[in-house]
């Protein structure tokens, strides 16, 4: 800590396990006491927050294996045995399998659509001069700071009139439209950083504009596409507001609304353990994906804010 190199942990620090692990060897102890107190406090806070983040998640996992009675009587006790039947009940009877399927379809369709359409628009806006270029760019960017709920009231009727309400493909189109602002913003900046010479060479060799785009520019933009793809995947997978308004048919529910619906209806049926199993079921795939592709996920989610 601070300016000094310290040796064996000073007694006051023993409360912070992380500090203890980090204690280097050699060099005489010459820290000020005040510094040590600050150090314990800081490390304590770090450990405490990690604990606060993990505890609710572990509690949910644990609860999903308990029976209904013990969920209410002793929320913190370990399950008497692992009630896997909660999980199978949630998967089949509580429609979790349908919600998963709907979510996969909606997110799969909108992710591909967002990336294809977003990169097309971004490429044109980044690389070509034409009247209205700036206007269209700012029209897209503006969508990032406007409250979506304002548009959702008329949008409901627009979608309804087109016969797209409560359909998977309707939801996909809306997801794409609302993902475009950030995608265009991010990819325009990305295409601008790519060298122009390669595309020019291809063009001189007789490749058309669209061929140059699909065969040369898109492969070059792969890192940017991965970042923005992860960003959109998580945003669309976790989306709650758009489906709540535009997707009110229970058979078409996506995971997030399905779970909320379940929480309401399970209150009457009293099947809380099944609900917890559903919650954990919905949490695990994204957490697992995050742990596996941690670096890419973090890059994808923070890329926009750092620009």
């Amino acid at each position: 800590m601070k300016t000094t190199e310290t040796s064996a942990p000073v007694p006051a620090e023993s409360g912070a396990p992380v500090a203890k692990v980090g204690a280097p060897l050699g060099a005489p102890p010459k820290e000020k006491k005040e510094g040590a107190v600050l150090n314990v406090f800081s490390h304590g806070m770090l450990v405490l927050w990690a604990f606060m983040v993990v505890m609710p998640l572990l509690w949910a996992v644990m609860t999903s294996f308990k029976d209904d009675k013990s969920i209410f009587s002793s929320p913190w006790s370990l399950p008497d045995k692992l009630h896997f039947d909660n999980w199978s009940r949630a998967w089949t009877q509580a429609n979790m399998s349908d919600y998963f399927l709907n979510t996969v379809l909606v997110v799969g369709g909108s992710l591909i659509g967002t990336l294809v359409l977003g990169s097309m628009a971004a490429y044109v806006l980044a690389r070509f001069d034409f009247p209205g270029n700036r206007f269209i760019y700012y029209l897209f960017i503006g969508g990032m700071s406007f409250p979506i709920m304002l548009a959702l009231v008329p949008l409901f009727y627009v979608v309804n009139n087109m016969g797209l309400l409560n359909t998977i493909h309707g939801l996909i189109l809306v997801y794409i439209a609302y993902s475009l602002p950030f995608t265009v913003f991010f990819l325009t900046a990305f295409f601008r950083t790519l060298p122009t010479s390669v595309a020019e060479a291809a063009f001189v060799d007789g490749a058309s504009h669209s061929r140059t785009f699909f065969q040369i520019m898109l492969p070059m933009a792969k890192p940017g596409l991965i970042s923005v793809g992860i960003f959109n995947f998580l945003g669309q997978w976790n989306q709650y507001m758009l489906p709540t308004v535009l997707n009110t048919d229970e058979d078409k529910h996506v995971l997030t609304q399905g779970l909320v619906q379940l929480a309401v209806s399970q209150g009457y049926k009293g099947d809380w353990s099944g609900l917890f199993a559903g919650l954990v079921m919905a949490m695990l795939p994204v957490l697992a994906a995050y742990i596996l592709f941690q670096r890419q996920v973090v890059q994808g989610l923070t890329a926009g804010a750092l620009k």
Partner: protein
Amino acid sequence: MQHGKYRFVVGFLAVPLGLYALFVVWPFIQSIYYSFTDWTGLSPEFKMVGFDNYSRMLDDDIFWKSLQHSLLFALLLPVVTIGLALFFAFMINVGGRRRKGGPVISGVRGSGFYKIVYFFPQVLSIAIVALLFQFAYNPDSGAINSLLRGIGLDSVQPLWLGDPNLALWCVMAVLVWSTVGFFVVLFSAGMASIPADLYEAALLDGANRITTFFRITLPLLWDTVQSGWVYMGILALGAESFAVVGIMTTGPGGPDYSTTVMVLYVYQKAFRDGQAAYATTIGVALLVVTLAFAAAVMRLGRRERLEY
């Protein structure tokens, strides 16, 4: 690169721009128009009523409550979240003791672990987080009160979401819980790009950690903090508060309108009460608040840009 340029530009822009115009731009324009009508949303007939909706809004106590709560969300949440995140990020990246032979500046041991764990809530849907905490807050069988009982605090058993004085704070705590990690990681990336010799110089001059933070880290990180602030504020006014308030609270928005926020009120007026035009009026107010917030943060936060 000129040959067939315009055909190509139009061909590539037509679909994305058309989709965007139809589903995003057009509804926005429509909703501003509707705010001057008496449209219910249930029937296609409506007529112009001028500023009636706006004057009704100014007399609507629930609107003022929702505005108050939304403003609190936009102003307080970023301060708490970003403050905590800056502290954690600084500890993780710069707070480590100097190891012999190691770099002058280093993070605490286990910094990688903290960054992974803190980020967990960010990948979960806010709807799932809200459901989880709804159970945790349950006064009888929830995790929090039974934990309090477990450590002998039988007398301290708040109603949490059932208590009008506490409910709003409970909801805000969940938003802080779910977003701090994102900013820790964001600021960590920013701090990693600050050159180590700046810290070295400060340490040679005898600066302690607190001084280092306020004199070096914060000024050099200011741009990131500012854009993070706007980002958090927009989320807190919009989608995130809709999810947490709508899912967790009774009513939703209760008890006794103590947690209602503008975005939820728009939703309820339009899709529950059949007052679409009035809903868009509140939506316009939300738009004004959002833009004013973003402009204020950008303006107040403007500082001389530091190059390094």
